[in-house]
């Protein structure tokens, strides 16, 4: 009895690859547990996808934690004292130029709208993170849902084998509530994929010739529970469940039962293979970048292929873009990761015909001061900064908005967070004025802003008057 006493303390690292091979075995032993429909859904799903003109729209939010420097990425100021060290390069769109550290994205510029007139009012990481994720400052009695929860609620299919909202590498730095489903409740909360047991730096991962190990929290049974044991447990549960569910029809018991079935089905069916990045060729994995962000972008592609409507991937989770000191080497390194992951994602989605149904939003909590400080860094700057919309539904190949010569103020095309998020909704075909009932009984729109029609490839003719709830 005592032989295992010490080995069971704490959880052993359980990377996706290992978890999944355990799962593969489980699947073989579990048979019908997840229901007959669980196997072989992928081809049918792909078929439905191709035929449906109103096919699922998707959204990828690339979140840049810490606040990325606009002047060193998408709004360069060459020749100005604020310009810094980086050079501009041409893109596929005449007159539109990016930083030299984003060469692959420059080749995809015709899919991208660079929003150089972002202007917000929150210069604190926590408040800015909340503002940009919810469209509201963190005040008052209401817990606003993160945009991924609100949009996926509209786009997801409750019977789909995978959840509607997945976050990758989001450690929820600065503000936890900004990443949560708020008053929409845990049903719309994201499934979190993270590198929990892999604390290696990108340099170390590259030196190891390895890839960041991303795991779904609680996907597999705890390490101390054996394979046969897990299968037996699931059967026992099934027996207990069927009795109770039959005696309490509908209501909370039916909802709980369905949710547990979906979770079990996800763990034990082909659906969870989406998370197994080891099935991708090494060359593909390398193209995306070996770190958490690159592998996260690859995972985003795999999830979108399988119909997941909203994926958020974080770069710089511990505030990597917060470059108060030594801005230039940091931004160069982050740009390399960004360029590899994001460009690969767009290229591969495009190859598969999925870019036109996938809208990508790139942003952080704010921009950075045009003026370079005494530590060769840049500080927080919400007054005039840049975000990017790209892909499906977006009128790409343009810079929308403009800052002055030194990047200090927006001189044209000022864009608020509400309008930005409303435009995102417009691009994925979600009515941003749709109301949900908040915990204080007040109906709340998804966002209060208006979509910017110049940014949409299919401009919304008439904003829908109906505000159903």
């Amino acid at each position, binding site marked *: 009895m005592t032989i295992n006493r010490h080995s069971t303390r704490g959880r052993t690292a359980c990377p996706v690859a290992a978890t999944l091979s355990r799962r593969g075995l489980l699947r073989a032993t579990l048979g019908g547990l997840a229901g007959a429909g669980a196997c072989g859904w992928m081809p049918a799903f792909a078929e439905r996808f191709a035929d449906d003109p109103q096919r699922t729209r998707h959204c990828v939010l690339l979140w840049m934690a810490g606040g990325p420097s606009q002047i060193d990425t998408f709004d360069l100021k060459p020749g100005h004292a604020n310009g810094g060290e980086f050079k501009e390069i041409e893109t596929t769109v005449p007159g539109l130029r990016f930083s030299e550290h984003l060469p692959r994205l420059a080749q995809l510029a015709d899919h991208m709208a660079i929003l150089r007139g972002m202007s917000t009012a929150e210069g604190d990481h926590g408040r800015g993170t909340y503002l940009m994720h919810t469209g509201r400052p963190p005040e008052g009695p209401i817990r606003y849902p993160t945009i991924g929860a609100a949009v996926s609620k509209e786009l997801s299919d409750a019977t789909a084998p995978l959840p509607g909202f997945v976050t990758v590498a989001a450690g929820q730095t600065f503000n936890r509530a900004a990443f949560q489903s708020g008053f929409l*409740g845990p049903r719309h909360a994201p499934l979190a994929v993270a590198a929990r047991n892999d604390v290696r730096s990108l340099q170390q991962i590259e030196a190891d010739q390895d890839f960041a190990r991303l795991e779904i929290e*609680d996907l597999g049974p705890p390490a101390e529970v054996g394979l046969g044991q897990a299968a037996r447990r699931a059967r026992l*549960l099934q027996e207990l469940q069927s009795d109770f569910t039959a005696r309490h029809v509908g209501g909370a018991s039916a909802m709980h039962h369905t949710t547990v079935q979906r979770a079990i089905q996800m763990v034990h069916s082909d659906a969870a293979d989406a998370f197994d990045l080891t099935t991708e060729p090494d060359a593909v994995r390398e193209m995306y970048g070996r770190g958490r962000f690159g592998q996260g972008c690859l995972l985003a592609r795999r999830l979108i292929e399988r119909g997941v409507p909203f994926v958020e991937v974080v770069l710089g989770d511990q505030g990597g873009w917060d470059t108060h000191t030594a801005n230039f080497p940091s931004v160069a390194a982050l740009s390399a990761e960004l360029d590899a992951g994001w460009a690969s994602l767009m290229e591969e989605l495009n190859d598969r015909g999925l870019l036109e149904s996938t809208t990508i939003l790139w942003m952080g909590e704010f921009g950075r001061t045009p003026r370079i400080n005494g530590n060769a860094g840049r500080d927080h700057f919400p007054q005039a900064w840049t975000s990017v919309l790209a892909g499906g539904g977006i009128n790409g190949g343009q810079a929308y908005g403009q800052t002055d010569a030194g990047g200090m103020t927006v001189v044209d095309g000022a864009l608020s967070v509400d309008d930005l998020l409303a435009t995102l909704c417009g691009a994925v075909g979600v009515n941003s004025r749709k109301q949900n009932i908040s915990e204080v009984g007040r109906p709340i729109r998804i966002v209060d802003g208006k979509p910017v029609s110049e940014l949409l490839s299919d401009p919304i003719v008439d904003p829908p008057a109906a505000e159903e709830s």
Partner: protein
Amino acid sequence: MMRGAPSQHVSGTRTMVNFRRRIGVVAVLITLAGSQAHAADPVANPKLTARIDDLLEQQWQADGIEPTRPTSDAEFLRRVSLDLTGVTPTVSAVRDFLADTDPAKRSKLIDRLLDSRRHAVHFARIWREVMLPSSTNEQFRLGAAAPFERWLEQQFVDNRPYDETVRELLVTTGQVNAVGPALFYQAVQFKPEELAASTSRTFLGVQIQCAQCHDHPFDQWTQKDFWGFAAHFAQLRRPDDVAQFRGLVVDTGTGEVMLPDTDVVVQPRLLDGRHLDEALTAGTRREQLARWLASADNPWFARATVNRVWALLFGRGFVDPVDDFGQHNHPSHPELLDLLARDFADHDFDMRRLLRVLTRTRAYQLSSEVTYDAARRRHAFAAMSVKSLSADQIYDCLQRVTGNRLLSSGPPSSSDVAARRAFLAKFDAPTQQVTEFQGGIPQALAMLNGQVVADASHWEKSDLLVAVTDSPFFSNAERLEILFLAALSRMPTDDERNRFEEYIAVPGGEFEASRRLADVLWALINSSEFILNH
């Protein structure tokens, strides 16, 4: 590599502690005789309970609705324990209750639960959620919410008349971090319009906040009603008065509210249209408001409160949602609502009395089992609704199953706090809509595979499992029984006995047997029957 000398030392200590705890667990598991001494039933009010039963039964007959069967003792015990104390009963409490032959045992149980410290702890949590916006949960969970919750707990320990509690909240003064109820103001940054909205919604069950910017589209409220109500909070010192504020809730005697985008000052005005008459004008504006708001004269206060308490027990109020009374949303059982409100006001807003009356009704003691006409019967309170547990309740039930002692009050250890906090963060849900299961796939995965449940069903970490396994005098049948009692508060059915005993009785000795028992406990914990209140 990670396991050096210090961790050996820690695990040695832990084993000793565990050993002592296990002895306690075994003692509890085999105790059959409980204390049966009770005070005489203090406020038996068979008349009111009977009247509620009559009114509902008449309605069922008129609508041709068939009520479900009465609950079994085990069903009732689990339900009323969860509703009144937030947690399932212990194994020995279930055994005692099932063995008790006293015909009045259900009423006595209700009294016992209402007198327990756990009742005050549970209701303090519920009322904190009701009184504070949920956005404050996160930031205040370990900070200022603690004094607020302790203050509430004391109100429930003392069974203070509810009108007094509300008045104290409304007139409180003092340092926000020291005086519990002051958080009510700080949570909304002392803004008169937010205080107007939360006060009317929380205590009167009316949504006047839609009238903040314009007259209410489908209810009676005008913009003047809203700002007239908000004017009662206009003279609080605001945090933006940086020089003077100093974190105090204090009435300054000056300050007015104006209609938005105008210079029109709105004077204090009560929601029933009355201006303050002389009897009410003494003291600060908040004192004036409090005297009117929490009183029998107020047409909303008692109704909103009994409706909320009914919803707490039955899953939905007569008016649903509970904070949306008005012309547009008529009560399902108006006569019953009036009866309860009148009785509540006539008896000093005695919360425990109200709970005692409601839990004794036939409707509360009906089974939740329905196989047909489910929605209609549930809405008519002819079948108990199946209710979701709050995150706190799920966590406490898991602690109970492992055999951990629940801290009734006082500061828990920092590791307990961290574990609880992580769990609550994952399962926390808006309090409304308890008749829906709130969790999604992440929560389901956390129950199936997560650390808290893994520990609760671990053959060496669960005190319950260790005690059950290590005690040579238990048969497999008895072991199984204990697991069912601990997790589901009932005996296994004959069918379950057969199936699960066969499952446990496999060759492989103690090693395999302990894992098989753990499997059973894991399955019980993951069942709908465990995670729901039915």
